[in-house]
């Protein structure tokens, strides 16, 4: 394999998160290494999505530390996380429904645009150059995901699977170094999942992007991830390479069931 799994970039230590009485996460620790594909699995309501939300600052855990590249991260807002190169997709698609695919992808590049309001109003100077330059980048993403034909379509009109792909594209457009994917393959058939896996692997491969992946399809998880962490009722019950996890009896009991 060409890519080299590197240092720990995000280290989560003893994270606990509560919503009123509901304990979404209890004392969870695990880490994410550079360039790896890290899967999070677990039954419904286990706290997987909440974990992602903690990582990119949507939720602030009551307890625990997040170490980012060796330094403890202070409480940060999602846009700051974005500034550090975190991008993500959502479990319930969170595309901007009223915009075209192209515009959705362009939003991914907002942090790199610097033109002022007035420049933009007159589409002049920096505004014009930026727009064209970033359009080029976005077109690369479009090519990569093979969504050329729907470039100008409002995303609301797209079928579910394509929306998922566009959402991935939006995250990619930001050229992230950490990509958080929340069930990117839910609601897809096998063929579409295969495509999606291909995209994820290629991103990981070509750009070295670190990926955190939540997924319920064990085939996918076992095939493409490097390490898997298993949550159940907010607690960590397993962590390791796929084969280890697959044979962990606790994981089998809580999540996989007997069929797998």
């Amino acid at each position, binding site marked *: 394999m060409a890519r080299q799994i590197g240092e720990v970039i995000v280290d989560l230590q003893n994270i606990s998160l509560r*919503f009123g009485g*509901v304990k979404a996460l209890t004392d969870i620790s695990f880490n994410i290494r550079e360039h790896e594909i890290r899967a999070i699995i*677990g*039954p*419904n*309501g*286990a706290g997987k*999505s909440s974990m992602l939300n903690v990582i990119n600052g949507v939720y602030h855990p009551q307890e625990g530390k997040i170490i980012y590249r060796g330094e403890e991260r202070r409480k940060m807002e999602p846009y700051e996380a974005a500034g550090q190169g975190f991008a993500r997709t959502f*479990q*319930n698609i969170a595309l901007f429904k009223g915009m075209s695919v192209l515009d959705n992808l362009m939003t991914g590049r907002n942090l790199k645009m610097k033109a002022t309001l007035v420049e933009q109003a007159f589409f002049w100077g920096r505004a014009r150059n930026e727009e064209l330059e970033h359009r080029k980048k976005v077109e690369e993403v479009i090519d990569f995901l093979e969504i050329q034909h729907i470039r100008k379509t409002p995303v609301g*009109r*797209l*079928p*579910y*699977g*394509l929306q998922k792909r566009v959402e991935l594209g939006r995250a990619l457009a930001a050229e992230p170094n950490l990509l958080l994917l929340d*069930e990117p393959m*839910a*609601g*897809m*058939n*096998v*063929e*579409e*999942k*295969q*495509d999606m*896996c*291909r*995209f994820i*692997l*290629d991103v990981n491969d070509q750009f070295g992007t670190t990926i955190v992946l939540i997924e*319920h*399809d*064990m*085939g*996918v998880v076992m*095939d*493409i991830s490097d390490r898997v962490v298993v949550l159940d009722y907010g607690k960590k019950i397993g962590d390791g390479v796929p084969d280890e996890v697959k044979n962990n009896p606790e994981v089998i009991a809580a*999540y*996989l*069931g007997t*069929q*797998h």
Partner: protein
Amino acid sequence: MTAHIAAAPGADYLSINNIEVIYDHVILVLKGVSLTVPKGKIVALLGANGAGKTTTLKAISNLLHAERGDVTKGSVEFKGGRVDQLTPSDLVRQGVIQVMEGRHCFGHLSIEENLLTGAYTQSLSRGQLNEQLEKVYHYFPRLKTRRKSQAGYTSGGEQQMCAIGRALMANPEMILLDEPSMGLAPQIVEEIFEIVKDLNARENVSFLLAEQNTMVALRYADFGYILESGRIVMEGAADELRNNEDVKEFYLGLSSAGRKSFRDVKHYRRRKRWLS
């Protein structure tokens, strides 16, 4: 295309005849779809994203209007009578209920209240209601533990269970299930299909289910239809479909060499089209 399944005696229960659906006056989505669901059977409606599965189900349950869609041709019959002009609630009273794709729980209501609204058409006594509730909780114990939570704050999977449970509260004879497995953990998926099977066997509930998870769907269904770009391209008994080479390759991810790892699939491989 018009070839009907050799249906069980008792004839067609639900049948759709050659319907065409247009959204927003311009977007033609279904181009003449016909299918039937015999009484007491489970029929799977398969197909890629955007093939029109959801649209078909909504055309049956009359929820299309709410999306500015229109059935412009064809008809829908249930128990021998046309139902395309009924309101959704009349249809529910007749026993046909749809579980919508994407959960659609009532976010501000608690899980239990969500379930109770499902029994709206049923005029039940307090006792009967509780019984009904217990039945649902029996199927989905997870819901019981979250019964007092506002549905909007429960996890994706919990909401999915809530939506299915809510439909069960209406004691339906026929359920249109749209992607029940989406976002559910594997063992819950199995559970849900077990529940489907159970209801089907014990209470003779018929199902029309739109699914992406072809593997599971075909395992539980009696018949299957495959929809592509708004047309039915293949139909047959479930085991027949399961053994069809094309279906195997494109919907089950199995080739003659068995299951391929997701890691090894090449992305230049393009789908074969039956129609184009």
